[in-house]
């Protein structure tokens, strides 16, 4: 049986752990609020961009089918898999569920007779893939808890170039979509080719009645050329959005992980306090028994 001193030391160390996890929870909560604000800040931009793309698409007419970034390829030999993870751990299953989905997707791609080409954002994903002996065509890190648009552009440069230069025929992205601080869902989406239908449909309804009363605008350059330029931008925004959602999810996941760590430490402290009290009581009982026995001897 552990002595009182040992138990007391363990309680003290759990209390220290609890202080740290509680502080980490508070930090994550503050960062989560900031990340949520950044998602909100992107929305007006993304909406306006979609409306512009939809307008250019409706004025470009059938040309839209000839934009390489919107064209599905009949034969897929290489499929890019972009994993969006975090630079740091201590966030529950946040990183591992992304890597797991990625590996599953790669197995599926390989069983379809194509090869997976890996891209990873976040140190955790990079090191997991490297550890598994996968070669990375692009790796990006150092920003995951506070991604900027510039970071999304760097990833966009890599995957869009790979697609247009023929290194990959399709790109799938896997990231933690932000549902709530308690709930992050590993989500897979096709990044490239972008869906022509989605570009056209965006802003429909409102685009319809706008068009009726609005004169055909002047275009610089021509609508189909402008659309060609808009689509990569649209894809970069999708990547930025995934990075932001992943960042919010990361803080949410860490907040939840740290909260349960704090609770677990609390339970352990309670159990140990109970054990310590029991040990102390046992010692007292023992001493009383000894005194009583001693008194019996004397009597």
């Amino acid at each position, binding site marked *: 049986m552990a002595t009182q001193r040992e138990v007391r030391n363990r309680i003290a160390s759990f209390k220290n752990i609890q202080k740290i996890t509680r502080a980490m929870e508070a930090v994550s909560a503050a960062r989560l609020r900031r990340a949520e604000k*950044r998602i909100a*800040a*992107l929305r*007006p*931009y*993304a909406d*306006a*961009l979609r409306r*512009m793309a939809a*307008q*250019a698409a409706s004025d470009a007419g059938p040309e839209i089918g000839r934009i390489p970034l919107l064209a599905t390829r009949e034969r897929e030999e290489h499929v890019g898999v972009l994993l969006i993870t975090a630079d740091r751990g201590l966030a529950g299953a946040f990183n591992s569920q992304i890597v797991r989905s990625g590996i599953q997707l790669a197995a599926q791609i390989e069983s379809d007779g194509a090869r997976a080409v890996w891209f990873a954002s976040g140190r955790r994903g990079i090191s997991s893939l490297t550890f598994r002996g996968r070669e990375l065509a692009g790796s990006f890190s150092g920003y995951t808890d506070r991604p*900027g*648009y*510039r970071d*999304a*552009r760097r990833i966009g*440069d890599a995957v*869009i*170039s790979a697609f*247009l*230069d023929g290194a990959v025929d399709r790109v799938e992205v896997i990231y933690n979509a932000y549902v709530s601080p308690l709930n992050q869902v590993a989500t897979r989406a096709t990044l490239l080719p972008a869906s022509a239908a989605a570009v056209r449909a965006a802003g429909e309804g409102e685009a319809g009645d706008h068009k009726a009363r*609005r*004169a*055909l*605008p*002047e*275009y*610089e*350059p021509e*609508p189909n050329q*402008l659309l060609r*330029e*808009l689509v990569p*931008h649209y894809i970069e*925004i999708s990547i*930025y959005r995934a990075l932001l959602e992943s960042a919010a999810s990361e803080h949410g996941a860490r907040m939840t992980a740290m909260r349960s760590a704090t609770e677990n430490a609390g339970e352990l402290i309670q159990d140990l306090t109970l054990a310590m009290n029991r040990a102390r009581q046992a010692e007292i009982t023992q001493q009383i028994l000894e005194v009583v026995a001693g008194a019996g001897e004397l009597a």
Partner: protein
Amino acid sequence: MPHTKFPCEVLTPEGEAFNDEVEQVSTRTTLGLIGILANHAPLLARLEPTELRLYRSDSEILRYAQGEGFMQVADSRALLLVGEATPIEELDRAELESSRARALQLLETTPEDSEARARAARQLKRAETFLGLIGADARH
């Protein structure tokens, strides 16, 4: 003579850079420099890295280092969607210089006619344009 004012909004993916009334917007499209006054004809244009000037009045001119993007003019409103819009005095020379160096290196190593090379060329253009703005700003 004061010009008529019209609403102008400058959005970046990281948030709103400007949203107020202006007398004139001056920027650069693929065809060259363009100035937008009130009641300009509807326009949808691609923008190149340049100095974006927003004239609140003849004497008050806001100057930004503006990245690539798009501009829509409709119903006498200007909406600019740009990758970045940084007040010129906040530009980071060291960052721009390293970006220029990276772009030059990429231009050396990427194959001709590749998308990777085209993107490196755009990165170079941005870095050089912005570095030029810092130079011009220092001389002011």
